[in-house]
């Protein structure tokens, strides 16, 4: 229950306070969101599988976001930023889909 509350509080804070993000970081926001979604879906599935672990979740979330942004940053420096963004989105997208399917099996038993 507390984690769900945390999510809601985060969304409301973001919408109400609308903090300004440094211009340098702005290009990496969308990819960071996709990475965060992957970690959240992974955590939800782990919980339903009964193997959830808070430490693993926190570490996977932070590292996911940082690594995804870092990969895209590196790609930008090398001139293949768009392609690497696509690669990151494809890989994370597949994982999100897989985890969403597993969650669906847990919830609907189908």
């Amino acid at each position, binding site marked *: 229950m507390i984690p769900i509350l945390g999510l809601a509080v985060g969304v409301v804070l973001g919408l109400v306070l609308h*903090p300004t993000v440094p211009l340098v970081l702005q290009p990496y926001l969308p990819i960071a969101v996709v990475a965060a979604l992957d970690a959240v879906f992974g955590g939800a599935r782990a919980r339903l599988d009964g193997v959830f672990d808070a430490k693993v979740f926190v570490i996977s979330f932070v590292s996911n976001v940082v690594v995804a942004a870092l990969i895209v940053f590196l790609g930008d420096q090398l001139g293949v930023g768009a392609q690497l963004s696509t690669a990151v989105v494809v890989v994370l997208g597949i994982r999100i889909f897989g985890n969403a399917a597993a969650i669906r099996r847990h919830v609907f038993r189908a």
Partner: protein
Amino acid sequence: MGASLLDQVLAETLDPAYLQAAEARAERERAAVAAGEPPEPAARARRRRLGGQVLVAVVLALAGLLVAVTYRQASAGSQGRAQVREALVKDIDREQHTTDGLAARLDTLRATVDRTRDAALRATGAGQAALDQLAGAEQGAAAVAVTGPGLRVTLADAPSGADADPVGTRPTAPSGSAVRDSDLQLVVNALWAAGAEAISVDGQRLGPTSTIRTAGEAILVDFQPVTSPYQVDAIGSADTLSQRFLADPEVQALAVVTQSYGLRFDFAKEGHLALPAAAPAELHSARPLPARPAPAGTAGPTTSPGG
């Protein structure tokens, strides 16, 4: 390890760290039971679970913040673009309005100047002679609107879709089936040669220094864009004009070309054509009337570089 990276990505959607952590936890508990340690006090276990939950909540709050900020950023971006576009359109409208107003004012002022000049010149014999001379020059310079019988030649691009690629994204017709500036030049020159006294293209009167040329995809007549169908009006004796125009070998060649490319090229004799005046040329220099001393107040030895 899977056969390939993709296989691995597809097969392993859950972070393996979760399973490892769960196994390690089970292992620890088994070891604790085997070592005969007393089970963890319930209060401590609860506190630890609560701490984990709070940690997860903080991270989820971070995730929500991230999503909200990104959403705001994206929506603000598109909103800003729409606003900027709207403002630009408004600017264009306003400036066009200003230009129209200035052009109308220019026309009235020009008419006033002409009237005043005519009145001043008509007072003297020399002025009257100059006025007659001026009238002839204005006719030649296309500075006055004219009406009369004549010939109307229409050129038009081939209808799109005749042999356009339906899949292609190019909206323009292939270069072979569009009227070019050289075609218009040819028609205009042939009309002059056939004895036309005045010519306009799409309502743009041609003066002595008019140009017909291509800029990008559009044809410009005196820097004003004209579009297909191009209507070339020529004033003169309709019969003579059409006879001489059709006898022109260049025109005959153009007729063949337009037919094979599907362009429209036709002409009609018109009993009454009205051609507007051309944009007057800028006044670059002026000098006083020669011979007899002119009365005060007419033309002075002034020069106006004009813009």
